[in-house]
């Protein structure tokens, strides 16, 4: 197994950037941004074919953040990759900012504006279908939340992608166990999610969404059997920041200046 220290350091820096961008007493959706840091770091620094200086390069892989409420994590990653000048993020969540709290395609590198759940996967399926028909190698990855799977549109898309064997499509489910107003298993218990999805003709893999070795092994180990791939990534909401870690409220909790400074000094 190769050494992933570089990625671990990057992930820590991304967490710092996330906390640094938070507007005290104003920003929320911090916990759900923290839970996907390793997944995004792995994808953007190791996996995806992207062109930060030409965000619309036709040879690029497509990444869609369907859980648009975690946009802050994506913006920090794109900033780190050099998609835009670093200073832009200084305006996050402020009046007249081009960085809204839900993902906006106005930001270079963001493929689709999201925020209402259940939109990203059908659009990802459209990209995958287009590339496959054009015999192009571009890969499509959609990152979704576990709560988001309540939306029927996702199951329409899962059925269609299985039927048409879109093996250039991967979904990553951020399984942090919480949704908008409760624990996922108490609201709509979809477990075993993997079994349900695989029945529609998908390959399903489970992994630790915070472990780079496991992420690498999973993404590199896809079976070559003309099926779309689903990775169920077990994560912890608010990961890496004890103030948020493992808490349902991390979706809504805000930071005051003092707590923000304390977290930054500890990171």
């Amino acid at each position, binding site marked *: 197994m190769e050494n992933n220290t570089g990625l671990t350091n990057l992930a820590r820096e991304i967490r710092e950037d996330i906390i640094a961008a938070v507007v005290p007493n104003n920003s929320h959706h911090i916990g759900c941004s923290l839970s996907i840091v390793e997944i995004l770091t792995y994808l953007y620094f190791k996996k995806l074919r992207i062109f930060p200086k030409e965000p619309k390069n036709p040879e690029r892989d497509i990444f869609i953040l369907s859980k648009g409420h975690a946009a802050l994590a994506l913006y920090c990653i794109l900033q780190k990759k050099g998609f835009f000048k670093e200073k832009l993020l200084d305006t996050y969540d402020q009046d007249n900012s081009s960085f809204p709290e839900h993902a906006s395609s106005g930001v270079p590198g963001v*493929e689709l504006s999201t925020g209402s759940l259940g*939109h990203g996967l*059908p*659009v990802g399926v459209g990209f995958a279908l287009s590339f496959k028909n054009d015999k192009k190698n571009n890969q499509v990855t959609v990152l979704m939340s576990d709560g988001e799977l309540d939306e029927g*549109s996702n199951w329409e898309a899962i059925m*269609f992608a299985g039927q048409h064997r879109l093996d250039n499509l991967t979904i990553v489910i951020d399984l942090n166990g919480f949704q908008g107003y409760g624990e996922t298993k108490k609201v709509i218990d979809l477990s075993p999610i993997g079994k349900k999805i695989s029945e529609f003709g998908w390959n399903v893999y489970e992994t630790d969404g915070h472990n780079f070795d496991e992420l690498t092994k999973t993404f590199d180990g896809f079976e070559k059997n003309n099926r779309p791939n689903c990775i169920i990534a077990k994560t912890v909401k608010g990961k890496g920041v004890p103030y948020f870690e493992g808490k349902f409220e991390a979706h809504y909790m805000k930071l005051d200046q003092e707590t923000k400074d304390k977290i930054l000094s500890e990171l």
Partner: protein
Amino acid sequence: MRSAIIEEIYNLMKENGNVYFLTGDLGYDVLEKIEAEFPNRFYNMGVAEQNMIGVASGLALSGKKVFVFSITPFVTMRCYEQIRNDVCFHDLDITILGIGSGLSYGILSSTHFSLEDIAILRPLPNMTIFSPVDEIEARLGMRYFKNHHHPLYIRIGKKKEEIIYKQPYDFQYGKGVIIRPGKDVVIFATGPIIGEALSAADLLKEKNIEAEIINLHTIKPLDNDLIISESQGKKLIITLEEHGIIGGLGSAVSEVIGEYLPGNRVMRFGVEDKPINIVGSQTFLRKQFCLDSIGIMDTILKELKTY
């Protein structure tokens, strides 16, 4: 009208390999030729309209021109947020083909009627609404919209609509057409129901009332200039549409009159704001809602007497 539009799309798909066609599991006896000839660009998406619009959006974002097809309520209401967020906010090259305008699915009952489509699609940014009167105009529009790369909704009847235009004319995007001049009253109308307006104008002429008929084939953007110029000096400003009375062409014209010619009354013909519990042929249903030529004439005469 439906077959004419599909034939125009077939021709376009033949000349342009970038065009896709998606259907929500409908199109029996209409789409077979497209399916057979372009198997890699025709997809039956199943009965799943939200996914259909999402997939269309992904295709369009990757550079394709996409047509989506179904019965109007299914392809507009069931997937409305996908149309708003994915198609319109991203300004994508997607054409929604809504079949069965107004009451044209007469005996299939109100689940299949389309009486709210203009009202819900008109507020969406980047959306164009095209509502052709007949087959000739539908073809002219389709040829124009070949080079239109933005969200478009086409309000399509079903089949065997009355032919209004005997030959092609100079179709212009967003420009209404005076199809019958007249000095006393003006009727702004859209879609196949214009046939009823023309017959009503014949009947009114016998009573010495001259009705001007204007075809507003593009409801968004609306031809404000023509509405303003042709309303001035008329005894009555009338709108006619096979759509609910709230939010459609009548509302759109009223907004223009309210803004530019305040003080004028707009008389709106449309389907009343109530659940519809009767069925019947389109002709029968139009009569029930006073949207047939005689109903239109009577209502206008009554109104003029009160002046």
